[in-house]
Every structure is written in structure tokens, then in C-alpha cells.
């Protein structure tokens, strides 16, 4: 935690006065000094965030090949979006994946959080064990599963299952990978919420003779609502942008059955050399997510009341 200075009640009055005049004496130069310290932030945000944000919109209005001259062609990049069957499929697939993973991830995370919410011997070990996969990078985790679920090399070979061989199995295995990698992360979010519930509330419920189930549904869940909402937001926005798990682990297959929206953007840009088309898809996805974020923030604020 941040170290705090001990309170200094007996501070010299003249120093306080000096400070006041000091602050009043050089307001103009202080303004410029502040700008100077904020300048690196402004440069990074301007050049690497605002400029590309404007550029992606401009690119989406142009025929923009990977190499060669760009040419204004609006709104062609947008009108041709619905002609791309792979993108249309990827929208449905990504939505389906988002729905499944959000439900499962929340349920598993809540279960884990409830198991390790109370202080008891070994609980720190359990929390660390559940969270540890979250410390590994997602790309590394996807590659780990790529080896582990290989029927010839992995430990599950005896089961004679093609883990990424059919569309359904590929989705199932990806869900296992994502649950393994992210359940502990979501558990940690829920734990912070669980620990904010005052013990007295539980004690009062016990005095009133509430059963464990009643305590859970009538006290824990309602008080956890803002935390659950936050977890849902992160899970939904994260899943809509899924890339690593499908690019690395299933490679979009089998038969393009696990191609996510971001994968189509990548493919259009670097396999079809159509940066304009990729930019148009990016703008659509960006607008959808900003709208979703705004909506969810409003719901979240409402939940706080």
C-alpha cells in the first residue's frame, strides 16, 4: 500500500502561508509545467490511439490494398460485408461462443469463489491453484492445450477422441481451454465482491434462521449483483473479440467451423490483402462494442442504486 506520511498537526503556519502565496504566485508557469508532464501521455494517446482511430474510419472508405495506392470507393467496403459468407458465419459463431462461454464461465467462477471465500487452512493454496493458469499467457495456454489434446501425444490419447476433429468437439475443447485459463481470473473478481459483503449481514440471517440456500439466493446473490455485472461485461466483450483460442488452438477448423470475427478481419487484411475491407469490419465491430460497453455501463450504474 502507499505509505502515508504521519499527520503533522504542528505544521508551521508561515509555511502554509508561503505555500499559498507560492501556489498563487506562479499559476501560469504551473499550468505549463503540468502540460509538460502530461505531454508524453498526450503524444502516445494522440499518435497511437486517436490517429489510428481516425485512420481506420478513413481506410474503411477506401480501396486500400496491402501494397499500392489507396483509392476512395465508399461505401463499397461496407456494402460488400454481407456478401462475405465467412464473415456472416463468423458473426453467428462468435455470438454462440460468447453466450456459451459467458454462462459457463460465470457458473464455474461463482462455484470456485464460494469454495474458497472463507479463511480456512489451505485456502491460499487453492486460490493460487485456481488462478495460476491465468498467469500464463493465453497464446501459451492455447499452445499447451494444442499439445495436450493431441490424440497421439497428449495424456488423453487412450480415450480415442478427436478433440478438435469435429466442429462440436472443437468448440467443446476450446471451452475447456478458456474455462481453465479464465475461471480463476473471474473467481478473483467475484471474491473481491464477496469479501465486501459485511459479516454482520450473514450473522443476522443466521439469527433469523435462514437456511444456507436462502442465505445464498436472498443475500449473497443480490449483494453480488454489481460484481457479477462487471464479470459479465468483461466476459462478453472479451469473447466477442476472441482470436488466440481459435487461431492457435483450432486454427478456425474443422471446415471453418470455428472462425471468429477478429479472425476474418485478420484474414481479409493479410491473406486477401484487402485492408479497406478489414477496416470496414473493424469499424462495425468497434461501433458494436462501444455501444455495448455504453449500454452495459448504464445497466451497471443502475445496478448500483
Amino acid at each position: 500500500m502507499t505509505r502515508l506520511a504521519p499527520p503533522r498537526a504542528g505544521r508551521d503556519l508561515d509555511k502554509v502561508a508561503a505555500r499559498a502565496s507560492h501556489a498563487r504566485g506562479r499559476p501560469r508557469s504551473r499550468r505549463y509545467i503540468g502540460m509538460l508532464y502530461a505531454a508524453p501521455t498526450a503524444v502516445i494517446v494522440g499518435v497511437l490511439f486517436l490517429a489510428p482511430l481516425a485512420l481506420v474510419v478513413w481506410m474503411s472508405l477506401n480501396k486500400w490494398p496491402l501494397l499500392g495506392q489507396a483509392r476512395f470507393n465508399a461505401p463499397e467496403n461496407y456494402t460488400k460485408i454481407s456478401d462475405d459468407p465467412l464473415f456472416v458465419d463468423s458473426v453467428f459463431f462468435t455470438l454462440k461462443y460468447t453466450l456459451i462461454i459467458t454462462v459457463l464461465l460465470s457458473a464455474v467462477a461463482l462455484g470456485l469463489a464460494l469454495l474458497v471465500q472463507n479463511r480456512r487452512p489451505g485456502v491460499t493454496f487453492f486460490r493460487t491453484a485456481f488462478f495460476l493458469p491465468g498467469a500464463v499467457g493465453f497464446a501459451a495456454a492455447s499452445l499447451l492445450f494444442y499439445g495436450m489434446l493431441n490424440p497421439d501425444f497428449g495424456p488423453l490419447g487412450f480415450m480415442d477422441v478427436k478433440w478438435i476433429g469435429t466442429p462440436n468437439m472443437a468448440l467443446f475443447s476450446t471451452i475447456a481451454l478458456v474455462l481453465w485459463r479464465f475461471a480463476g481470473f473471474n473467481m478473483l473478481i467475484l471474491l473481491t465482491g464477496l469479501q465486501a459483503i459485511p459479516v454482520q449481514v450473514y450473522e443476522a440471517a443466521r439469527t433469523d434462521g435462514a437456511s444456507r440456500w436462502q442465505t445464498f439466493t436472498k443475500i449473497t446473490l443480490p449483494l453480488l449483483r454489481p460484481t457479477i455485472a462487471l464479470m459479465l461485461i468483461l466476459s462478453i466483450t472479451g469473447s466477442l473479440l476472441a482470436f488466440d483460442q481459435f487461431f492457435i488452438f483450432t486454427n478456425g477448423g474443422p471446415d471453418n467451423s470455428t472462425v471468429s470475427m477478429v479472425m476474418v478481419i485478420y484474414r481479409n487484411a493479410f491473406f486477401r490483402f484487402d485492408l479497406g475491407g478489414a477496416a470496414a469490419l473493424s469499424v462495425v465491430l468497434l461501433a458494436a462494442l462501444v455501444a455495448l460497453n455504453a449500454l452495459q455501463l448504464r445497466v451497471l450504474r443502475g445496478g448500483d442504486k
Partner: protein
Amino acid sequence: MRRTGSYSATSALAVLFLFPLLWSGWSSLKGQPGSGQTNGYGFGNYTRMAHFGEGLTSYLTNSLLVSAMTVAGTLLVSALGGYAFARFAFPGKNLLFLATLAILMVPYATILIPLYVLLGKIGLQNSLVGLSLVFVMFQLPFALYMMRNSFEAVPRELDESAMVDGCGTFRAFTLILLPAVRPGLVTVGLFAFLASWNDFLAPLILLNDGASFPLPVAVWSMTQRTFGAIDYGMLEAGVMVMAIPCLLLFIVLQRYYVRGFMSGALRG
């Protein structure tokens, strides 16, 4: 009864969560016909990986360079910026803060394509410096927020009395304030390291030369073989080289991780 039941369930789950990591470590050392370690146990897979592609040292150096530049850049920019936002009033202050936080609203995957074009225009395409700057930008909302709050938690009297005593703002910043916000700096640095060390999509898009690949892209390329079988032993050795630094850092700095977590570092 109930207690032992929940205990065994929790233990079983813990084994399930730890198993993949343990299996990966074990199989990176285990002998397998046709791999770098043909029988018994040893570091054969790691030795073979050392000569994969451009060589492990090259990929490892790329990863370390990118992470070091990202951590240093994020710390520098967010410490200066956090100081500005916590202690000064200046024109455009609120606008800049909102613009920085807006980075969180915009999905990162959607601006990598224009960033690829933009970095090309300023001569930083296919450059580890360009990649690191992009990571600094992605880290900035969390880092700036964290550092501003850390500086605000330090009583103003501390640096202002130093300035009354003749220190300039920069000396007050380096001598008085920076030591006081060290935990915040560690948290920001930890998140910047984990993000830059592990990211896959940004280097995949922004770098196009195998010699400049960092570890995640290099190890992934082991699975992209058109001819011959994939060497899974070597693959898991690659996974371990990527994972072990993160696992160690997490275990040592867990306190800082949870601290950052509580203050909103909630981007995976």
C-alpha cells in the same frame, strides 16, 4: 461431513487446474521417439528448440527487449502523466484523461490494422520499438489511472513543503514522490510485463519478419508446418519457456497483482 466433502471437492478441482501445467512441464522433459529427447528424461527438447528457426536466443532476446521497452515506457509515461493529473491544473486536462480512458472502450483488435499502416508511415513497421510503443498505449489507461491515484494518496504537504524549501517540481517528483508511490509503480510494471510478454495478435500483425518475432509467435510457428510432423515435445518446451517467468513473477508479486486487480486492471 460437509466440511470434508467440500475439502475433497476443492482439492480435486485444484488438481484439475494444476494438471495441464504439470503435464506440460513433464512432457517437455520426457523422451519421445523422433523428438529432441529420444528416451528417458532430460533437456533434449529444449536443446532442439534452441536451434529452431532463428534460434531460441533470438526469440528470447526479442521478447525480453519488447517487455523491457514496454515496462520502461509505460512507467515513464504513466509516472509523469500521473503526477501531472494528480498535482497540476492545465488546459485540456479532463479531455486528455477521457481520451486515455477511451482506449479501454475501443477493442484492441480493431485498431491494429490502422496501427500497422501508421507505423509503416513513421518508419516503425516490423520494429520492436513500434510494437513496444503500441503496448505502452494499450497499458496507458490502467497505468495512468493507477499512478494518478497513487500520487493523490500522497499528502500534498510532502512535496509542496519540499518545493517551499527550494526544490523544483522535478526534484520534488523524483526525490519525494516517486519513492512514495513505489507499490503503484511495481503494479503498473508487472501488468505491462505480463501483457507485452504474452501478447500474440499485436506482434503477429505488426511484425512480418521471422527474425523479429517474440516467443508467442515463434512457438506458434512450430505448429504451422506444411511438411513433416509437429514436434510436440519441443512445442511444450516452448510453452514452458513462455510460462515459467510469468508463473514465478506472479507467485513473487501476487500482492501487487491483486492490488492492481482491485483498482481495475480488469483487462485479461
